[in-house]
């Protein structure tokens, strides 16, 4: 009974699926294949490596500080960093006083203790980086109808994130001739900029890092466009996961322990089964 019913159900679903397959295959073969601009021109991120990669990866604190400099002087004009607190910056090598000074250079929302009205005050180390715009409407109004995303988690929120950030920053270019010829609708409109590393090719953000020496590096590193892009990608790798170093160090210790445990468990298993063939 169950088997007969089962065969009927099976024939039904198999039949419908094969029918759908034939219909789909017919459409696929007869319909003209439409090529999209994104499919033709979108590029995967360039290969990108940084000191924090790999099992033994460690953050390069000097690089993270340079990256913070790029964020502060370039990105922070439009992009917030809402999950990061100023006190977190101690982890990339700033001392307490430096952190206090950095915090004080930002204005954070506050309530006036006399009148109760909304006001601002200097940031404290315990504060998080403040929002750049009061709300999304303001952000859109200021940025050609695009909201600049928060950067705290950017390198985790994109596939192959650090490479994506780096590639996007150095990837601005003039749209290829072929794009204008074949996909005139996909050409950057007013206020948009062509970048093949951006999923739909055109984005509202103007090239942010354009000139050598745009950010002054205190440690003497040459501030080329490439270097600044790398440094800020490294900084955003840290903001996305400040505990990465601790994670990898813990992981090595845990693995070492588990390997010894497993070897001992294997030996006792062999020992216990020595008299039993199986």
């Amino acid at each position: 009974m169950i088997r007969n019913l089962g065969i009927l159900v099976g024939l039904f679903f198999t039949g419908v699926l094969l029918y759908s397959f034939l219909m789909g295959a017919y459409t696929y073969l007869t319909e003209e294949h439409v090529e999209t601009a994104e499919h033709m021109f979108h590029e995967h991120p360039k290969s990108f490596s940084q000191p924090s990669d790999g099992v033994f990866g460690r953050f390069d604190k000097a690089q993270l500080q340079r990256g913070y400099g790029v964020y502060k002087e370039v990105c922070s004009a439009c992009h917030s960093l809402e999950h990061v607190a100023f006190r977190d910056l101690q982890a990339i090598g700033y001392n307490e006083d430096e952190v206090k000074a950095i915090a004080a250079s930002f204005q954070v929302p506050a309530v006036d203790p006399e009148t109760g009205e909304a006001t601002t005050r200097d940031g404290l180390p315990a504060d998080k980086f403040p929002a750049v715009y009061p709300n999304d409407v303001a952000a859109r109004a200021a940025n050609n109808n695009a909201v600049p995303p928060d950067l705290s988690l950017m390198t985790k929120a994109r596939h192959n994130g650090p490479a994506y950030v780096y590639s996007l920053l150095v990837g601005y270019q003039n749209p290829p001739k072929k794009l204008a010829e074949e996909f005139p609708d996909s050409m950057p409109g007013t206020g948009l900029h062509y970048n093949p590393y951006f999923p739909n090719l055109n984005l509202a953000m103007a090239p942010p890092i354009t000139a050598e020496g745009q950010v002054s590096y205190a440690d003497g590193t040459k501030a080329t466009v490439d270097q600044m892009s790398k440094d800020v990608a490294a900084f955003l790798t840290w903001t996305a996961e400040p505990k990465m170093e601790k994670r990898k160090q813990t992981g090595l210790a845990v693995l070492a322990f588990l390997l010894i445990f497993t070897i001992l468990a294997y030996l006792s298993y062999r020992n216990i089964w020595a008299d039993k063939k199986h």
Partner: protein
Amino acid sequence: MSFPWASQYNPTHPAMKWIDERLPLPRLVYNAIGAGYPVPRNLNYFWNFGVLAGFALVVQIISGIILAMHYAPNALVAFDSTEHIMRDVNWGWMLRYMHANGASFFFIVIYIHIFRGLYFSSYKAPREMIWLLGMVIYLLAMATAFMGYVLPWGQMSFWGAKVITGLFSAIPLIGPTLQEWLLGGFAPDNAALNRFFSLHYLLPFVIAGVVILHVWALHIPGSSNPTGVEVKQESDTVPFHPYYTAKDGFGLGVYLVIFAAVMFFAPNFLGHADNYIAANPLSTPAHIVPEWYFWPFYAILRAFTFDFFFIEAKLLGVLAMFASILLLFFLPWLDRSPVRSGKYRPLFRPFFWVFVVVVLILGYCGGAPAEEPYVMISQLASAYYFAHFLIILPIISSIERPDPLPASITEAVLGKDGEEAPAAIDTTATTGDAAAQPAE
């Protein structure tokens, strides 16, 4: 129930005797996973995965309880509270990665456990109830994992919740009302998030309860084994402790090494980048995909692209997706072959491996964007999925001529005259009728 030769719990310490007379809990443990449970001696490493699944469930429950102490199930702050756990809670990052990857590993383990059952026909009499309870655990685990994925309130959480609850809207007449009732609104929002959190906390304990029933049902006939021949004599078995506690200990070590390697060095490999973007009802992700362990079923859902007479394609997809899981409940009655183990079923074996490949293909297509050629491939693969269980297996079981079975587990392990020759061989089991030995 146990075999007559099972060793008996015999407490010597007065305290243990005292406990045993009042609440024989140590006796229960002794008979369940101690020396009092005789287990076939020939179990291979695939038999480790039951214990591993239990372990993975405990890891999820413990890490989950601690995470719930720091998480806030409110749509306004859920995403931020998850990041709070990652950044400011002591070892919070480790707990969250353990819990997120632990879910994936739980599914890896139960998928291997289920495929073990499929190859060795562990679902056949007298073990149907173990299989049915296992399927209940699997369904509960899928519901729990789905709701857990919604809790961080990232983009995939939100849109996954929207798509999956949207499946119910395909039901004729009551569908849209049912979806609103499930979500507590027109779209996933605070009401949905709160009830998902509540159920996500509840269901693992329901799973734990069904696991107890699953293990109880297992102890009635005892464990199956790779030959599929039932235990007949004492030499076929070894006591669970120390033999299988030692083997499971080693298996657990290997499992933990792999788990730790992924959790500490590639914790986001099995996740989706979009879930690190806070939920935004106004921005639809380019490709909405569930977690990887749902991909084969997601591929079946999306394989139905054409209306069939009066039935809408969407409804067909939903019916097929639920049918693809529910049909597993009927497996013990679909496969009537008297031989259990795939080792002795020459016709079944190739179809089984085709099925494994088909499920992997379905998984790949389910994770790929809904465009050609993936849709056509998933249509063919889904057709095979249904045909395998509902047409091929029943037919094979009536036309297949199985290979001869060993007379006993002892003979399979030691050969006909092994050095550990058993004292009393069951004289009814000769090689002649072993090939046709019924599974019932």
